[in-house]
């Protein structure tokens, strides 16, 4: 029993080691996706707020999605990470901020 658990733990750690970079980056996907695509939905496609909230909705819920229309700035938080996207202009559309 104990040995089995140990083996599983070793496998899990090896797997996590292999995918270390991907695992570390992954929690940021939800907030980055939501901030970027909500920004484009609102400020490039010019769709209404309600539509855009539904448009970016994923299975995992966001903690916050904040839009500051005067700045064309969208901030999203989820899975403990935050990301911001801002509208750059009519040709350039939206971009995630560093």
């Amino acid at each position, binding site marked *: 029993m104990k040995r089995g658990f140990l083996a599983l733990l070793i496998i899990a750690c090896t797997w996590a080691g292999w995918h270390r970079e991907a695992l570390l980056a*992954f929690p940021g*996907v939800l907030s980055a996706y939501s901030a970027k695509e909500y920004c484009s939905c609102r400020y490039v496609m010019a769709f209404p707020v309600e539509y855009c909230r539904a448009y970016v909705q994923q299975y995992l819920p966001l903690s916050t999605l904040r839009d500051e229309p005067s700045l064309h700035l969208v901030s999203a938080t989820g899975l403990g990470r935050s990301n911001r996207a801002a509208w750059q202009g009519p*040709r350039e559309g939206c971009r995630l901020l560093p």
Partner: protein
Amino acid sequence: MGKAALLIIALSVLAWEGRAAEHWPDPDWASTSAPISPALQALEAYAFAPRDGHGREGVRTDALLVIHDGRIVYERYVAPTSAQTRHLTWSISKSVLATVLGVAYGQGRFNLQDPVARYYAPMQAHPMVRIEDLLHWASGLEWQEDYEYAPLNSSVVAMLYTRGRADMAAYAASGARAVAPGERFLYSSGDSNLLAAALRGMVGSDDYAWQALFQPLGITQATWERDARGTLVGSSYLYLSARDLARIGLLMLRDGRWQGQPLLPPEWVAFNRQPFTTASTAPGEATPGGHWWLNAAVAGRTRPWPDAPAETFAALGHWGQALYVLPAQKLVIVRYADDRDGRYQHNELLKRALAAFAGEQP
């Protein structure tokens, strides 16, 4: 002498008349609406099936626009999408990027056999990869395009949203070599963004897509988002109205000619429409050409969309975006959508559109 002069005059009049009879969106599309027929109703029943309020299931068309011989014959939108909406095209961007590259090719700015590294220095890590390989999605670099089922290891998710977002081409170029360039087709948004970076290196201008393609076509409302380095996200982030995307379809339908002027060399369009011979694709999946998708049958298989003519070609994007060109029928079809499951079928839409607009029996 007199006879020869008369013949020349007669021929030029005929040529001029031939051109005058051709319709172009100048400045706007001419429109004649097709009469409502059972075939048109069948098309609408498929494309515009009722949406349920909360779920995201089934075929969810945002826009359907049909151009026949340069004139609008059908146009319908589902709110909030309208004729003015610059809709996200997702991977249709890739084929439009190839069309921008076609203008650069016509200007003699590069050859298909040129190493990508000549125009984009980070590709010196992969000196054998040529422009042609990228256009065939055959760089040979490691890539995981899937993101619905393998989000953790998806290269495209990492490129767009996390590790690659600051410089998407550099992220693609950092991949390890899996096979030799040109050896196999592996659909990769990374390859497309390497093309965008190479284009930037060739032309040295951030507005080249506008100068070279959008302005000549009369497209005034294009948005093409960039990464933090300022390179176009050639893989994914072009936004156009349905009517403006149809202009690119009409350009391709007419072999790169726009109002009598060759904007793309005919051999470029022929390259776009030439199947990549070493391609092996899943049944029902379109055949890759030069950064466009073809209905050509490969390796003894039936063609991907059996109810559409073999010469049909398309630009295709995530969630059901499509620009179809049917040369013999002189049809250009734009479909924008928000399909969140795999239920939408290109073949079904094409079959019904052909019945409605080309008089073909389904």
